[in-house]
């Protein structure tokens, strides 16, 4: 059983929902990332989503874009990110880690090399924002048999046919983007989320995560009533940004956010 599968079935057994924090690897400095991943887990995170910095993060809002820029000032590469995962794996062999990023760094490394190194580092899933299933067959092939799941986004604009195509190609879980817009946007509409999740569940048994626009414990709790997993990104990354000059304080600040979300979600 993969780490992702194990984690979701374990949560299901205890009646809990997964809390998935996102941070950008290497933000604001590279040597802090593994510590932050551990802090997130100890505060109640179930799965870590680790952003791979990219120079042109088209689907991200300004908060996560600036996180990429801070990491790139230290030339954090895809290889570096996988090394961080390796180090994390030496300390924690249970918490699943999903890499989220854009295709070009993977393209230039080569799909086979990337898949082999990711598997060896202990990565569990890959979410490539600009790689729809139509273009993703080759990468999927390289990942096959290596215990790596390809995680796909589903959007408010996805038609029922597309939802089916995506779910058929997906592994691990599917990630519903709760708003039309970039990461960190507002206006999450619970009713739309609820009806879209119904469409998704009609065609897949994979767990469904919801993200984009989850800013606080209250929203996290509300979404966790509907979804199997809650993804929180910009709300954390903006804390990182505020403390970029005092990185020693970041762990504590992220723990506070995650702990309050955990508490609110578990009280549902």
């Amino acid at each position, binding site marked *: 059983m993969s780490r992702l599968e194990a984690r979701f079935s374990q949560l299901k057994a205890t009646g809990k929902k997964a809390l998935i924090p996102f941070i950008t690897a290497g933000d604001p400095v590279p040597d802090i990332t593994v510590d932050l991943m551990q802090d997130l887990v100890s505060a109640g995170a179930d799965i870590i989503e680790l952003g791979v*910095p*990219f*120079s*042109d*993060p*088209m*689907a991200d*809002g*300004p908060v996560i*874009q*600036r996180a990429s*820029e801070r990491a*790139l000032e230290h*030339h954090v*590469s*895809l*290889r570096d990110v996988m090394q961080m995962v390796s180090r994390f794996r030496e300390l924690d062999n249970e918490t699943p880690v999903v890499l989220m990023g*854009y*295709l*070009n*760094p*993977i*393209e*230039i*490394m080569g799909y086979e090399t990337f898949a082999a190194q990711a598997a060896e580092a202990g990565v569990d899933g890959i979410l490539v*924002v*600009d*790689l*729809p299933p*139509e*273009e993703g067959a080759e990468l999927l092939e390289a990942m096959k048999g290596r215990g790596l799941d390809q995680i*796909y*986004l*589903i*959007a*408010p*604009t*996805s*038609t029922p046919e*597309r939802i089916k195509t*995506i779910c058929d190609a997906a592994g691990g879980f599917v990630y519903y*983007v709760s708003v*039309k*817009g*970039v990461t960190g*946007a507002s206006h999450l509409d619970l009713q739309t989320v609820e009806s879209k999740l119904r469409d998704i569940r009609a065609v897949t048994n994979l767990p469904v995560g919801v993200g984009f626009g989850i800013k606080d414990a209250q929203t996290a709790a509300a979404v966790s009533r509907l979804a199997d997993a809650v993804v929180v990104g910009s709300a954390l990354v903006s804390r990182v940004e505020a403390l970029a000059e005092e990185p020693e304080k970041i762990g504590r600040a992220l723990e506070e956010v995650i702990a309050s979300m955990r508490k609110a979600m578990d009280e549902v």
Partner: protein
Amino acid sequence: MSTTAEKIIGTLPDARGHFGPYGGLFVSETLMEPLQELREAYERYMQDEDFLRELDEDLANYVGRPSPIYHARRWSEQLGGAQIYLKREDLNHTGAHKVNNTIGQALLARRMGKTRIIAETGAGQHGVATATVAARLGLECVVYMGAVDIARQEANVYRMRLLGAEVRAVSSGSKTLKDALNEAMRDWVTNVDNTFYIIGTVAGPHPYPAMVRDFQTVIGREAREQMQHQTGRLPDALVACVGGGSNAIGLFYPFLDDQDVKIYGVEAAGNGVDTGLHAAPLCAGKPGVLHGNRTYLMEDSDGQIIETHSISAGLDYPGVGPEHAWLKDSGRANYVAVTDDEALAAFHDLTRIEGIIPALESSHALAYAKKLAPEMKRDQSILINLSGRGDKDMHTVAAREGIEI
């Protein structure tokens, strides 16, 4: 030349937007459905007589088409080789080829019921061309422009504002065209219900590379006829500058099956391709994925997009249209690069010898033709796409030469 060569025109891209290994549809899920809608509308209206008539009328009466072909006799004489002809896209309304495409896309937007237009711009020519058609059709218009480009193209920024467009400065990344494109994509993802994104070049996700090409091929269709009419035959060589590559593909495409016509796309070598400070992905880049398509890119060994350098804001882009990537690999077109200095010299040549002030972008094509012409015979001809006029570049040229205006 082979007469049995396979036909190219009409065969690419495939149904999913691929030009060989290039092109495609690399966007986040939110844009997949809107792009499908756009594809359907574009395919439908490109067969719709009423739409095509409206487009043709606008191109004739609003843009001023057909643009003439001008025989640059004095310059040809001085270069001492092939006869140089200029396709005068600089004479179009708004001063460049960009309007051919913005008219087409704006009419499409209106047919699709979209009320808001967004665009990205580098030199400002596409922004101006978009603001112009938006004004005429009464559509709300937002143009994204890198903060660096805003500083070096103030006059165009003012023109866009006069036309009623909101110009939004983009201060992320390298603050140039690529970042403006990122920001426009973000806007589109957020406002996709009422918004039409007019991409200005033959890049981006399918169907943009094919659609923008189709709107720009009016350049090559006219030129092919005009050259036959004026000189009795096809030109021996075509030369056009390539940033994203829309003016170039517009000229090249109708000639692709004319195997005897040599094709040259000219990229910006900036300070020189070997200095690393340039904008020549076809000459010195590698294939990768950016802005929705696979193509040649300027990137580092980690796959990060690197900053480009060119005196010409319109060529300052790290990618290039996927069809050019394919034309390069297939050998049908040759891609070369000229430096800032070479482009400037050609800018002055055309200005002083022919009384035509060219855009700095187009000056790159002129600079390459200047090298090519003397190697050819006097009874041969080169057709250059003079894609824009140079009024917008007065400040850049003056500043470069230490003159304050």
